[in-house]
């Protein structure tokens, strides 16, 4: 297994990284919510996404695609809607402002918890839950995905949609999700990974590492691994029914949404109001696009089940 780790590692950097991530989202969450609504993740689109001459995608299309992403992930993992078998207790790891958490609560009538490093986002999530009349079913805490404040085996569904990128220790992150999953529970992880290595490769090529390092600096993404790495963590944790897919093509149209929104007056003003960190992140989207186009970065789904 080859992992690309950032230069810094243990020690005081953990608090620095957590603080950096929390502050970054504290600062930018307003802008992101204004631009994209409550789902802080990509949309899922059919491929090929548009026939020549087709109308460009609207904000409505992108929002629909974001909701579709949730449904596609649940379907991929085979989560049941049967009243007996559906999840009753759900954990959203890296829950943003609770978009997915609320969606899952509504979908399954389940009790849901979201954890997040950003106090501003947690507060916002609680407000949204209150506004949607779901405050009794859904709660949010400031907590660390790498050290989750739950006893073992709590949740029927453990969900992480585009938060895995921020985890400095992918194996610990994955093993915590497995720990808090109940027997028979489903784990769903949708995240950016670097490409799988071929059997004769020990690491990515130097030019690929260089690009990833640039991206990591800009976006507070402290480490990368491949989808194959996640699958092998799952295997070593004796998890079952391990499935994975490359959805890079299915999220490609979201880039244009990001760029489009950023380029509107509303978008620019939002970004300017948020501060320099947010602006830097926005500018660095082009790096992500580069990584995606060069097939260094992949958008993957990895799901599995905890044995009964």
């Amino acid at each position, binding site marked *: 297994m080859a992992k690309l780790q950032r230069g810094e590692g243990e*020690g*005081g950097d*953990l*608090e620095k990284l*957590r603080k950096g991530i929390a502050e970054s989202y504290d600062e930018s969450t307003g802008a992101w919510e204004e631009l994209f609504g409550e789902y802080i993740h990509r949309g899922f689109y059919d491929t090929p996404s548009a026939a020549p001459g087709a109308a460009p995608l609207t904000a409505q299309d992108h929002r629909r695609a974001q909701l579709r992403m949730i449904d596609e992930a649940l379907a991929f993992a085979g989560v049941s809607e049967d009243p007996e078998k559906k999840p*009753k*207790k759900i954990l959203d790891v890296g829950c943003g402002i609770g978009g997915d958490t609320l969606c899952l609560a509504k979908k399954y*009538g389940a*009790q849901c*918890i979201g*954890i997040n*490093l950003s*106090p501003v986002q*947690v*507060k916002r999530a*609680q407000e949204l839950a209150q506004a949607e009349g779901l*405050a*009794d*079913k859904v*709660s*949010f*805490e*400031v*907590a*660390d995905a*790498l*050290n*989750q*404040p*739950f*006893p073992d085996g*709590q949740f029927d569904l453990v969900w992480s949609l585009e938060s895995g990128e921020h985890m400095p220790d992918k194996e610990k992150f994955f093993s915590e999700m497995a720990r808090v999953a109940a027997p028979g529970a489903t784990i769903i992880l949708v995240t950016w990974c670097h490409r799988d290595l071929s059997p004769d490769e020990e690491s990515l090529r130097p030019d690929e590492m260089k690009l990833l390092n640039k991206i990591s600096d800009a976006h507070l993404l402290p480490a990368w691994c491949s989808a194959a790495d996640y699958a092998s963590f799952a295997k070593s944790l004796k998890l079952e029914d391990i499935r994975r897919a490359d959805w890079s093509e299915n999220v490609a149209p979201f880039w244009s949404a990001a760029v489009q929104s950023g380029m509107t007056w509303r978008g620019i003003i939002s970004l300017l109001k948020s501060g320099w960190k947010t602006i830097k992140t926005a500018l660095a989207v082009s790096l992500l696009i580069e990584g995606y186009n060069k097939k260094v970065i992949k958008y993957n789904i990895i799901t599995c089940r905890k044995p009964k």
Partner: protein
Amino acid sequence: MRLLTHNMLSSNIRGVVNGFPLGIEAEKVVEREVELSAEFLRGVFPKIEWGALVAGARALGHPDLLPGEADASMLASDDFLRRFHRALLQLHVEEGALVCPETGRRFPINKGIPNMLLHEDEV
């Protein structure tokens, strides 16, 4: 933070063997009415650690709200459902702390949000 949430949280400090349930220091408690759903209560009852809920209600200033022990047959009683509902969902700790039962370490609750982040030396 409601007691429903408290019932799911534990201390995960390195070396702690049993971090559940967390103690509660309640500095500001508010009660907010929310509609009672018997179906929800019956569904969630089997997953509730009753002892922790009773201790929580006591810590929040309601020592007599719940019976010391409970079993599923009590869910047929409207009175029991109302008490269960009130303890689980209506009482909120706005300010205070959760306390690790083994180390005494406090996890602050501000504006109703518990902060469960560990320090470097606790992981």
